[in-house]
């Protein structure tokens, strides 16, 4: 949002402006608060990561367990994002293009994971698939590993990221209506062709925006993944879990080195997010995702 738009063009009467002193004081307090709460932690991550110099930093990042964690994080995020694109587009198509009973209830259920604690998001899968869980004995008998293995990590990640893409696309496609699709279909295009050449171009920026937020959460998820992963070094450790293990071993430089990569991911995400909101405000249904 730009300031120029909100300000009246001519500013004659200053009846409702604060006195300059009050204004500076308010700005000062707000900036100080943000510096202390938001920026200090960010600075701390990079300062601690480079405390022993660039050599130690690079050493920490090339440790085999750490590179394995990076690989696993990328793999889990990739699977979650692909899953969320398929389900998100499907859900948005069904919800935005059709009227049916219980639609609002369905939307509420889709957003449910937002209100569930990350730890509980992991716990539910342990209760279902863990050794003492409902399906645990059956899975063990058939030699299928879900908890303390990749499938559990992926499931927990999908659980916490479930609403991101869907919510974004539902809002956007509801705003866009059905006219363009109806037009294409009445001109003889197949449903699939209509989706590819009419709907997809209309939603591509919104979809990318949703994927951006979904990916950031998938790569950074800690609580849910911590519960299901078992934290086996080099095997089921994602980057956030690797941060925890290294930190608890007092290997602070290595912990903060891995953390700095995740912080960098957050900064890139924020920069792209701001760019999207500035450049494609109309094409992403701004305000849909909190």
């Amino acid at each position, binding site marked *: *949002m730009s300031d120029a738009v909100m300000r009246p063009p001519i500013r004659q009467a200053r009846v*409702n402006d604060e006195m300059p002193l009050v204004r500076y004081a*308010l700005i000062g307090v*707000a900036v100080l*608060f943000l510096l202390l*709460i*938001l920026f*200090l*932690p960010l600075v*701390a*991550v990079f300062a601690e990561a480079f405390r022993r110099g660039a050599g130690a930093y690079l050493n920490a990042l090339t440790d085999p367990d750490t590179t394995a964690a990076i690989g696993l994080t990328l793999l889990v995020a990739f699977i979650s994002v692909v899953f969320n694109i398929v*389900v998100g*587009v*499907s*859900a948005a*198509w*069904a*919800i935005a293009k*059709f*009227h*049916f*009973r219980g639609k609002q209830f369905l939307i509420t*259920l*889709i957003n*449910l994971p937002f209100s569930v*604690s*990350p*730890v*509980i998001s992991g*716990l*539910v*899968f*342990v*209760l*279902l698939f863990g*050794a*003492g*869980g*409902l399906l645990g004995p059956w899975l063990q008998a058939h030699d299928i590993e879900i908890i303390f293995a990749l499938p559990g990590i992926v*499931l927990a990640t*999908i659980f916490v990221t*479930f609403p991101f893409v869907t919510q974004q696309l539902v809002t956007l496609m509801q705003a866009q209506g*059905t006219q363009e699709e109806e037009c294409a*279909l009445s001109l003889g295009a197949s*449903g699939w062709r209509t989706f590819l050449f009419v709907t997809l171009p209309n939603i591509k920026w919104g979809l990318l925006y949703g994927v951006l937020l979904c990916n950031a959460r998938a790569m*950074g998820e*800690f*609580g849910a993944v*911590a*519960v299901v992963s078992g934290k086996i070094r080099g095997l089921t450790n994602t980057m*956030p879990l690797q*941060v925890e293990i290294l930190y608890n071993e007092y290997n602070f430089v290595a912990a903060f080195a891995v*953390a700095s990569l*995740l*912080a960098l991911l*957050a900064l890139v*995400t*924020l*920069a792209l997010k701001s760019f999207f909101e500035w450049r494609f405000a109309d094409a992403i249904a701004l305000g849909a995702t*909190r």
Partner: protein
Amino acid sequence: MSVAGGIIRQNQSVIPGFGITLGITVTALSLVVLIPLAALAFRAAGVGPAEFWRIATHPRTLAALRLSFGAAFIAAAVNAVFGLLVAWVLVRYRFPGKGILDAAIDLPIALPTAVAGIALAVIYAPNGWVGGGLAQLGIKVGYTPTAVVVALIFVGLPFVVRTVQPVLAESEKEIEEAAALLGASRLRTIFQVVLPLVSPALLTGFALAFARGIGEYGSVIFVAGNLPFVSEIAPLLIVIRLEEFDYGGAAVIATVMLALSFFLLMVISALQTRNRRRLGYV
């Protein structure tokens, strides 16, 4: 729209793919979200009412729940005040660096919680960046319940700012001008005109920050100290029970936590409806 109208409309639509897209959605939602959550309720119910009550009212459970809900409440209240101030400053004033500050508001959502957690730990530990100075003044933050509040302030801030900001941006300055021209002081205008206007959004932001804080885990556990009965949050107690293979205990605490937070969200949403009606828009 009537139900019958809805069904007719659906049948008449020329758009294909309703069955398959709704099918994919409901199947995915059931497999990943609904069935696992049902498993939680099933497991918690499986311990029996007496055992459920014993676990739910165990002093350690109660202490953890009290800390999680209490700290989340205080943090959300602090965020309501400072979040409103930040939103106000970002919407109404111009100053250098504003764009960066605005973009940075979402940092707590983008930054992985474990990263925030260890950063807060080196800042607020008794020998940390800020904690060291505070310790000399005799104030302990790191490894106390206060640290839980600090972590939850970090986590909840964007929810308040991002819900209040658009409402402030859209509020018409003419109303404030009218109040001023009618003789109201600036302070009175703020408290009697602006605040009522943003109060529904502020309450929503408070509720979102509160809900987020109750369940928060990663950013808290590194800096809280995790002393049972003192600085142990409810999500951590769930993890501890799981590590002891006490699945029933974990399920009961999780169920109580979920039920309490859903109840609170419902109360807040009811308050909101009343608030909106009182202000004249439904």
